[in-house]
């Protein structure tokens, strides 16, 4: 008799997270928990100003302090060819500043001392003489003809432009606009924000002179990429580099890049021959590490009277900070911005993107999103909202008219992606029903008569999750596949390792569920290990919702290879030929006599004790998985708000989230991911941004100014599911980690704008702080958070 899959913790079981056992007991093992004998501590001196030439650096007083072992400057790094390092976008970034500082918080010096107090005291003793230069804090200033050049270190650099890039069919799109009955236009800014994991970045470099081996503990979402980077930058032989990502306290994209602190701690360990620990503080994390967004849009839509979208134009201008350090597939300069409008059937589209350097922190740029998909979907849904309003058409109906239909898959999008599955209209209907959509217009009308302002907002989108496939997606040339290695022990228990790295996603729980599904081994009998490059197979790490689509698929494939071998063992044990064997969950049996069978555990024992003649012993295998396509989850979100007209404060009355992420491995974890993502979406819509004053001072340098919402103000979310399995994933799963952060913000903003539409308001830039809402409400005008930026062409 087949096992009950839910009982053994297989697919669909809302199994409790095994990692929580140690986390809620305070027994996690983070980089800062690791203490090595003789370990020294490193502190970084950061630039207090946004733009300045370094005239001199005097470190003598720091050197003189008892307990100080080493003080490193940019000049000393330069002597070892380490003052600059390559970024993930083929640019260079300063490790320690030599010529200039280019953003507030940039790394200038490092002090290595016996304890962190001394290191910090010594930093305060370093005297840097800065010649202040005019700061550039937005692309308007960066593009000005007389603008000072930020990257005067780069030969051939013209002005402050990073790139011009375009995609789509310009001629055809221009024609669509000529033929349009109506052109809808909007401009907006998606403000800069920060992933802000609770654990900041940090590392311990432990170089052993005797063995020549470097062990590097680091807060990385992609430990294998770090090993590759260290091998290339520090020119250490790869077999002598072991990178360990222990428990990670959140990543959200912030822990993909390689940061100066990592590089400096490695050099410091080599020079001092001691382990060197560097733990960033919160301010350091907020002002210097990978941010998200900071993109301006000018969007235009060509429309037919009946509501059909004929074409789309997007002009984006992005602010990259001092170095072009976006973590993104190398083909695309503005990430996957061109995934916009993937859920709509649109004949033609064109996008022109321009990037600028500014005196702000350099990017990571993907904050819980696949390479700018968040901006793409936000812009899409804000443009859709404006277009429906301009047409005088119902928001839901406008979407319905333009959706790709269920039987139109596979569908080539206007920008060239291939979507493969979905039930968009069904999701829309589920959401409309749940929020009471059809009665809302009346409700709103009546409320307005009583002086109350109600609004409803919709956001629907499909997004590309789970890069690669290797044809199109690589980072610095390394293809974006992933891997899993499964080793079944003789008692039928197992250890699974993957090239991904969990940071809260629950891999230790869900990977075991996939193995349980494939092999019938109870999930609790499977240990999952990730993050040690000496033991785990090579993989590109966890970000961009890629773990389940890529590493998770590899887990399935590795388990299937193991099952194929176990089948041969079963045939041997049952003394029949392999063709006569059938499989049911956890057991092989003889087709003609289902009572005669062996369990997977019996096969495992035989693999070590009674294998067939000529068969290799053991029961293990490795799979490298290169997905044929991205996965395409769908989200339909509905938000209802009420605005206090005297203060501009808005409250969420109801929020409905319908998610179709294909087959759900662990529904509880999926819901947790959606809840968390919606909370972050609410944060960005309501309060959170990383802003700078005219002098380039970062305003959000701590948690009193950079706001994370708490359970107190975060609204409740009602979740619904629709399941359209992914046609190419071995278990039909799609990515989900980012759907809610991506689709969420537009639902909130569309709701607030809807509440004010009768005043003529079409746009308020995020965050929708009460003062901005009040301004829109009282003036009837759009509110921009930043000066509108003219497009680059």
């Amino acid at each position: 008799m087949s096992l009950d899959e839910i009982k053994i913790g297989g697919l669909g079981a809302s199994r409790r997270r095994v990692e929580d056992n140690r986390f809620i007991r305070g027994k996690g093992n983070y980089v800062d928990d690791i203490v090595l004998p003789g370990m020294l501590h490193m502190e970084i001196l950061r630039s207090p100003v946004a733009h300045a030439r370094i005239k001199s650096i005097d470190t003598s007083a720091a050197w003189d302090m008892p307990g100080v072992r080493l003080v490193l400057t940019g000049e000393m790094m330069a002597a070892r060819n380490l003052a600059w390092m390559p970024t993930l976008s083929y640019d260079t970034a300063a490790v320690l500043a030599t010529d200039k500082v280019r953003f507030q918080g940039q790394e200038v010096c490092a002090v290595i001392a016996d304890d962190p107090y001394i290191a910090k005291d010594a930093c305060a003793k370093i005297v840097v003489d800065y010649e202040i230069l005019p700061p550039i804090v937005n692309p308007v200033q960066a593009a000005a003809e007389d603008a000072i050049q930020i990257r005067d270190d780069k030969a051939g650099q013209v002005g402050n432009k990073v790139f011009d890039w375009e995609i789509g069919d310009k001629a055809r799109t221009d024609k669509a606009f000529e033929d349009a009955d109506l052109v809808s236009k909007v401009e907006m800014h998606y403000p800069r924000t920060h992933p802000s994991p609770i654990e900041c970045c940090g590392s311990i470099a432990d170089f052993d002179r005797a063995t020549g081996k470097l062990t590097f503990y680091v807060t990385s979402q992609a430990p294998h990429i770090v090993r590759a980077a260290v091998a290339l930058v520090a020119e250490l032989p790869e077999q002598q580099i072991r990178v360990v990502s222990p428990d990670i306290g959140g990543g959200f994209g912030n822990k993909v890049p390689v940061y100066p602190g990592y590089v400096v701690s490695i050099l410091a360990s080599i020079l001092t021959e001691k382990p060197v620990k560097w733990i960033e503080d919160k301010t350091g994390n907020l002002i210097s590490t990978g941010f998200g967004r900071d993109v301006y849009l000018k969007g235009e839509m060509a429309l037919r009277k009946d509501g059909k979208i004929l074409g789309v134009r997007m002009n984006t201008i992005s602010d990259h900070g001092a170095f072009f350090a976006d973590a993104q597939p190398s083909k695309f300069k503005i990430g996957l911005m061109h995934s916009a409008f993937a859920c709509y059937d649109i004949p033609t589209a064109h996008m022109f993107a321009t990037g600028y350097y500014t005196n702000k922190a350099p990017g990571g740029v993907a904050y819980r999103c696949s390479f700018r998909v968040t901006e793409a979907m936000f812009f899409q849904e804000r443009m859709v909202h404006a277009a429906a309003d301009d047409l005088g058409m119902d928001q839901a109906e406008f979407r319905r008219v333009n959706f790709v239909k269920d039987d139109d898959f596979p569908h080539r999008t206007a920008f060239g992606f291939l979507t493969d599955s979905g039930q968009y209209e069904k999701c829309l209907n589920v959401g409309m029903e749940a929020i009471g959509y059809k009665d809302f217009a009346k409700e709103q009308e009546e409320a307005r008569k009583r002086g109350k302002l109600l609004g409803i907002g919709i956001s629907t989108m499909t997004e590309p999750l789970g890069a690669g496939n290797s044809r199109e997606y690589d980072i610095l040339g390394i293809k974006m596949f992933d891997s899993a290695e499964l080793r079944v022990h003789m008692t039928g228990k197992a250890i699974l390792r993957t090239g991904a790295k969990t940071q809260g996603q629950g891999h230790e729980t869900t990977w075991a569920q996939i193995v349980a599904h494939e092999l019938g081994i109870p999930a609790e009998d499977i240990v999952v290990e990730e993050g040690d490059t000496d033991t785990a197979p090579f993989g590109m790490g966890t970000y961009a919702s890629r773990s389940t689509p890529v590493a998770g698929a590899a887990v399935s494939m590795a388990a299937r290879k193991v099952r194929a071998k176990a089948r041969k063992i079963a045939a041997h044990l049952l003394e029949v030929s392999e063709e006569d064997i059938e499989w049911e969950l956890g057991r092989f049996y003889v087709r003609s006599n289902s009572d005669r069978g062996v369990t997977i555990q019996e096969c495992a024992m035989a693999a070590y004790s009674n294998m067939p003649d000529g068969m290799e012993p053991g029961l293990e295998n490795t799979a490298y998985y290169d997905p044929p396509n991205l996965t395409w989850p769908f989200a339909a979100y509905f938000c209802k708000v009420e605005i206090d007209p005297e203060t501009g404060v808005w409250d969420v009355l109801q929020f409905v989230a319908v998610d179709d992420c294909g087959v759900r491995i662990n529904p509880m974890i999926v819901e947790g991911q959606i809840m968390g993502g919606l909370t972050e979406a609410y944060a960005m819509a309501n309060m959170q941004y990383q802003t700078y004053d005219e002098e380039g001072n970062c305003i959000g340098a701590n948690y009193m100014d950079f706001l994370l919402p708490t359970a107190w103000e975060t609204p409740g979310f009602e979740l619904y599911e629709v399941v359209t399995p992914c046609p190419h994933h071995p278990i039909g799963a799609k990515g989900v980690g980012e759907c809610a952060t991506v689709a969420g913000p537009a639902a909130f903003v569309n709701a607030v704008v809807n509440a004010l539409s009768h005043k003529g308001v079409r746009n308020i830039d995020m965050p929708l702080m009460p003062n901005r809402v009040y301004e829109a409400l009282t003036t009837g005008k759009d509110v921009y958070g930043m000066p509108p930026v003219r497009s680059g062409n």
Partner: protein
Amino acid sequence: MYPSRFKYESPKTIEAAVALLDAGKGDAKILAGGQSLVPMLKLRFAFPDQIVDINNIPGLDYHRFDADGSLHIGALCRHEDLEHSAEIAERQPTIAAAAPLVADPIVRTRGTFVGSVCHADPQGDWAATMIALGGHLVVQGPKGKRTIDMKDFVLGPYANALNYNEIAIEAVIPAPKGVARGGYLKLERRVGDFATASVAVALDMDGNRVLRAGIALAGVGGKTIDANEEASALVGHDLTESIIDTVAAAVAAKAEPRTDHRGSSDYKRQIVKTFVKRILVAQIAEKVA
């Protein structure tokens, strides 16, 4: 957290604490709840030589109403003690309304009322409340005790009228004439945020007639704004919507908000006006019933 080096003492009596402050000659700091001082140590905005922790001094963690109706709050009474006090809820509406809006629940378990008043943060909630209530502080120094009226206490941002060797040991709110009424409203971006603008209103009333009125503001000036003079226009009058409008406008004019990323100065004045009105309108006799 890696503050600069300091000495730490935890005296058992007020006298011993005062002696340590005196010996410190201005470089010693009291640690009460630590919810403002510790963040400043962490950021190295404060770097005292000596920390004088008063948490082990017995007998300071009280709040009580005396027979005459005055309210006394000891130096170690925590925000949450006031938030959860049934007596405060019944007898002191302004404090009852403000307490749950101060910081967040975690901070409220440690932060003290008196410490907050001493800290004199222009965005702090309790200094504004104390000014509106016309309270005073009892302070003790090497030469004994004295009292300082709230109207004279806050000198500027983070500056108060204490000498370096004095401890505030108690906050006192005088007994109301008639019935104590009032409220507190605050615009914040999320729980635990300091005020974008907040308004403390304290009234003593006889039926619908105002016997005493106090209003103070936080977040809308370089220091806590004392609008008691503007509020006094209510005294001797019945609360009506028209007098409320006049006073709300006058209080908003008294605010000195700066335009910043939380909003324009006009917007913040609008919030002050709205909040003053909302609190006062809610006190109109027939609405209270």
